[in-house]
């Protein structure tokens, strides 16, 4: 401060330096680097990507597909021909696992992404308009939370014979129903977060500078909620995969002839003693999927935390709490 007006030769150089825009902003890089520093998270990402790739190209490694019946191998253990053996109906289990993994990942990704999108739009609308709009929208939201989603899934997928259902594959129907019931928690969180952000001084500062509301939402609110949104996507994907398995397991989600991990696991329960691999193989795949997502979630949270310098214990603990709260919600 004492040299407030001193001409600093370094400034001149700095001026030139700053002409290159890349010097100025590198947040994405910072976040990316932080994520990469977290070994668990990277491992999670690797497993998840590997499974996704497997679900697309795995089919090329076998001549069997999920429909062809091999009449000579019915309920056989793994062999060179059928890597994971065959089902009771004589269908190659490997082919079915590949297909099931793809459907499960598909359901997870679509539900995870779209529900967060719905939640963001709905939550921000509530926070932005406030007042009556907020009240009514909150009421609808809570009413939806109150609906036992499971029953609605059951009713909707129970194939009573309406036109809609006949023309839709059961996985698509399941996606739609899961979507309807999966976004409310996130929406409520986004609403309260945006509301508290609106009260923060830096938003006020922007308002007092005359920054238009659109821009405030885009430049201040969205990035500050953004990390939450991304975390919620990974969480939403996990939840959707789990829900699919749970519903299909008791026979109300995906229905044969469509396959999914849930269908495979559920279908194998009656013979778990005699043909254990039929049960454990798809179950392991499911664990790998949900486990890898959980690992990624952890790393992402650290990467987004602006106050985190590394992965201190305290910070992790704090972040965990938010997960738990969400989970209980």
């Amino acid at each position, binding site marked *: 401060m004492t040299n407030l007006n001193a001409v600093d030769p370094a400034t001149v150089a700095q001026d030139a330096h700053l002409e290159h825009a890349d010097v100025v902003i*590198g947040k994405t890089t910072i976040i990316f680097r932080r994520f990469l520093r977290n070994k668990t998270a990277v491992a999670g990402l690797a497993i998840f990507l590997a499974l996704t790739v497997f679900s697309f190209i795995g089919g090329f490694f076998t001549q069997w597909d999920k429909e062809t019946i091999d009449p000579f191998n019915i309920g056989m253990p793994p062999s060179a021909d059928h890597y994971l053996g065959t089902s009771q109906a004589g269908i190659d289990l490997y082919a079915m696992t590949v297909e099931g993994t793809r459907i499960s990942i598909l359901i997870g990704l679509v539900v995870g992404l779209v529900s967060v999108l719905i939640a963001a739009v709905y939550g921000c609308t509530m926070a932005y308009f406030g007042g009556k709009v907020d009240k009514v929208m909150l009421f609808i939201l809570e009413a939806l939370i109150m609906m036992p989603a499971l029953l609605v899934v059951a009713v909707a997928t129970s194939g009573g014979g309406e036109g809609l259902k006949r023309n839709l594959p059961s996985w698509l129907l399941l996606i739609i129903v899961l979507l309807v019931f999966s976004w409310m928690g996130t929406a409520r969180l986004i609403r309260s977060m945006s509301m508290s952000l609106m009260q923060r001084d*830096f938003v006020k500062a922007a308002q007092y500078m005359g920054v238009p509301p659109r821009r405030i939402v885009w430049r201040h609110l969205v990035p500050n909620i953004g990390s939450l949104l991304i975390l919620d996507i990974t969480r939403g994907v996990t939840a959707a995969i789990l829900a699919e398995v749970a519903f299909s397991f008791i026979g109300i989600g995906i229905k044969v002839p469509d396959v999914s991990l849930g269908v495979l696991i559920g279908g194998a329960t009656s013979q778990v003693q005699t043909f254990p691999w039929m049960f454990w193989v798809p179950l392991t795949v499911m664990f790998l999927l949900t486990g890898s997502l959980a690992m990624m979630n952890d790393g992402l949270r650290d990467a987004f935390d602006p106050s985190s310098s590394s992965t201190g214990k305290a910070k992790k603990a704090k972040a965990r709490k938010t997960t738990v709260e969400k989970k209980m919600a």
Partner: protein
Amino acid sequence: MSSETTTGATQPARPDVERLHLAGLHAPTDAVLSVRDLNVRFNSENGAVHAVRGVDFDLMPGKTLGIVGESGSGKSVTSLAIMGLLPPTAEVSGSVRLNGRELLGLSDKEMCKYRGNDLAMVFQDPLSSLTPVFTVGTQIVEALTIHHPGMSRAAKEARAVELLAMVGIPSPKDRLKAFPHEFSGGMRQRVMIAIAIANNPRVLIADEPTTALDVTIQAQVLEVLHTAQEETGAAVVMITHDLGVVAGMADDIMVMYAGKPVETGAVDDIYYNPRMPYTMGLLGAVPRVDVAEKSSLVPIEGMPPNLLHAPTGCSFAPRCPLASDACLDGEPALAPVGGEAGHAAACIKSGSLGGSVDVHEVFAAPPVPVSRFDAIPREERSTVLELTDVRKHFPLTRGALIKRRIGTVKAVDGLSFDIREGECFSIVGESGSGKTTTLLEIMEFHPDQDGEVVIGGLSNKQAADTKTKARMRRELQMVFQDPTGALDPRFTVYEVLAEPLQNAGMDRGAIRKRIMELMQLVGLQPDHVNRFPNQFSGGQRQRIGIARALAVNPKLVVLDEPVSALDVSVQAGVINLLDHLRAELGLSYLLVAHDLSVVRHISNRVAVMYLGKIVEIGAVDRVFDNPRHPYTRALLSAIPVPDPQLERTRERIILQGDLPSPLQAPKGCNFATRCPVFAALPPAGQEKCLTLEPPLEPASAGTDQQFACFFPDGELDEDMLVAHEPADQHAP
């Protein structure tokens, strides 16, 4: 001037064992608390943080030791180490003796015999220091039960009532059943004090007990602490970063820096004859509420050192204006100076300091900036902001389904003032008096506002379209109280500063250039633009906030408590910066602050607000030197000054209670419920105050001072006046 209490080990560094041995032998046997070579290390992921490095002191019964220093200097850690309340990760060594018994090394269980009994503590944040789910009574009784299990229930309750009464809580019996959230911050701190003195402790440690409180409440709490000390005869360790707070009550002072005592001695020696540049800097950094003379504050540049690495030289050297090569050669030990008993300083140049050395010269404080407007009479300058009869009333409703209006909160009630070019206008008052609401009313440009706000010739009534609004926005910008909250954590400094410029439609090249200018202007390194706010210290963040406000060249900057979140030394730098900017750029300021010394230092004019109304307004020197309204007098009297002799002798007005809720505002004069003049008035006078509202009227011809009181010269009520007996050993 000798002090019975001695502080500081005077020996130069020797092997620890030998030192401790000597210390044990030489510790005065009558010291109630004696600390020797206290060292605390925290093992963190990055290595060991050596937070406290060799603290020594002896505390005599009934005496007060003040520990001062910037935040992070190890004051709290020292006190927690004495109490045995540090986390298990802390490594504590040295010796802490309470009445001759060694406390270090005792188990948690063994310590419990002393904690809350002979050794008690009051913490900084009263809002979080009481358990929210238990009543105040339960929490006081608990303190009694722990150490007197045999005491009967009724006896404990009686004692709790007695304690609450002692700390000045009205109708204590009913309040026992209240929960902490039903109490204000000041009341909760009183409860904390009641808990601390419940068992008549021998030593009471108070760690920044008033930092979180309003000045008037601070004065009350300090008074309560004083009473508590008198009642219990306890020795007190008073920790603070505010040199004013301890000036009046301490017998001895220990100045800490980077975990080490750097100067110790009797209070008068430290304040009038500091021998260490850091102490001198701290004293010079505090603005004075009682002197009109304008001189720049002494800023202590830089930040305290990182305690991860053992210093090889004087730890203050990087910030010390007197540092020379000799200073880097080993850390100077605390050595006796100047022949005053017990006065010691850790500086190789202490011999040449003290007495007549001017701190402003030492620290090269910038000259008092002169604005080009200073020469022009106020009436001839143009008006940048004018408020006419601005009101903001909030309806208060009750009822769930059908809302009933049960009253009106008059947050701002008929405010009128104007700000001219190049001047700093301040609003002062307790929290809740309507300062922030006033700022919001100015910043938000409601066209349908009750009253009128004219900014640079444009009225808020016209601010219906975006263009007018944009023009008004360019005229005035705001700096916020909390420098951290005001910066988007996800923005780099560059983005922060670019935002207003982009909004003004500047092109990229111009923006870059302007940002570099701004960084220089506020004294930040231009190559720090790529950093995130969390990589800066509080003072630097506030500079970023100021730079942002200045980006679009406004005429008026609204400052909401701009320095209250900062340390004194850092605060001085920011105040100097504001002063400098005003002169150089011809800015006007609207400043809101509760610290009257800051206001006196930087303002030209001041308005005192109470419950939404201005009770006194005028030129700052006029109002502060010759206050007419009893509230102004009380506020001024609540500010402690860093001058021990003055503090010890001066008479203080201690206002009773907290600011009343605006709902309970009386019909006549707002201030009647707490007014020290009113309390002493004859019934006829009281009647007048209660029925008529005093208008804001000029004090005398020739000044622009105005005030709203019927009895400006009335006697003050005896009960609200406090003067401490000057302690004899300090008598000059």
